């Protein structure tokens, strides 16, 4: 019997084990979306309590890891200070590619130095929209599979993959801008 099945019988201890297992990754994920630390802590607590209530009332969970991310994502998004009235701008893929350095000047040593810097990576990630950031975070940083990340974001797989591709190019574009500005590690 799985820990979730044990928890669904009202046992708190198996659920505490699940908290130990999933909290670090969920904490990183929520913190990537919610800039205020106290809000992030509150979101995570709310997420686990909501998850417990769902499970203890016999709710079904098919992909536990994706589901925990989905619950945490809901709690985080309730606290994301969205830029009201600002529509998402989707530029043509080729233009986005060029901003990301596709076919442009090449400086592998400076790019490598930039990629070595966690601070620069975090700074570039922080400039992405929340939807782009969560796609990169789930798939590339936390290592969820495509289907898991799509389930966590409640998107059809094809839609998630399109978003992820654009988000990676956006991130590369932010790094490219740093290279052109003369930044680096």
């Amino acid at each position: 019997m799985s820990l979730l099945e044990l928890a669904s019988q009202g046992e708190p201890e198996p659920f505490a084990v699940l908290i130990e297992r999933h909290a670090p990754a969920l904490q990183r994920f929520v913190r990537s979306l919610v800039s205020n630390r106290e809000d992030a802590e509150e979101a995570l607590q709310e997420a686990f309590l909501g998850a417990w209530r769902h499970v203890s009332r016999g709710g079904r969970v098919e992909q536990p890891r994706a589901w925990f991310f989905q619950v945490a994502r809901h709690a985080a998004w309730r606290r994301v200070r969205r830029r009201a009235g600002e529509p998402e701008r989707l530029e043509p893929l080729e233009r986005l590619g060029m901003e990301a350095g596709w076919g442009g000047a090449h400086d592998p040593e400076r790019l490598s130095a930039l990629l070595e810097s966690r601070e620069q990576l975090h700074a570039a990630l922080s400039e992405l929209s929340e939807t782009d950031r969560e796609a990169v975070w789930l798939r590339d940083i936390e290592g969820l599979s495509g289907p898991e990340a799509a389930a966590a974001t409640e998107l059809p797989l094809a839609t998630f993959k399109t978003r992820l591709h654009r988000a990676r190019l956006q991130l590369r574009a932010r790094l490219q801008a740093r290279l052109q500005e003369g930044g680096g590690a």
Partner: protein
Amino acid sequence: MTQQRRAGGLWCAEVLSRLSDYLDGELPDEERARVEAHLTRCDLCERFGGEMADLVRTLRHRLGERTDAMEGPRWGERFLRSLRREVTQAIRRDHEH
């Protein structure tokens, strides 16, 4: 990209649109072979594809599984303990009612 090339049966823009699926190993065999044929003949796409692969690999390596990446390790451990305590207390209260 100022000059689009056609190689391996694909234009550069078609390779760009498939790049993430290619890097994630999610292209069907035939399409993957066409992308690879293009990459062996187009240095610009090969270079950009390599840089994107480095970026994806680096994200996991540099930022994954590190609670101290943004906050410092103590915050992560302290918060985890407090989270477990508070959630389990709330669960017990739920359980008793």
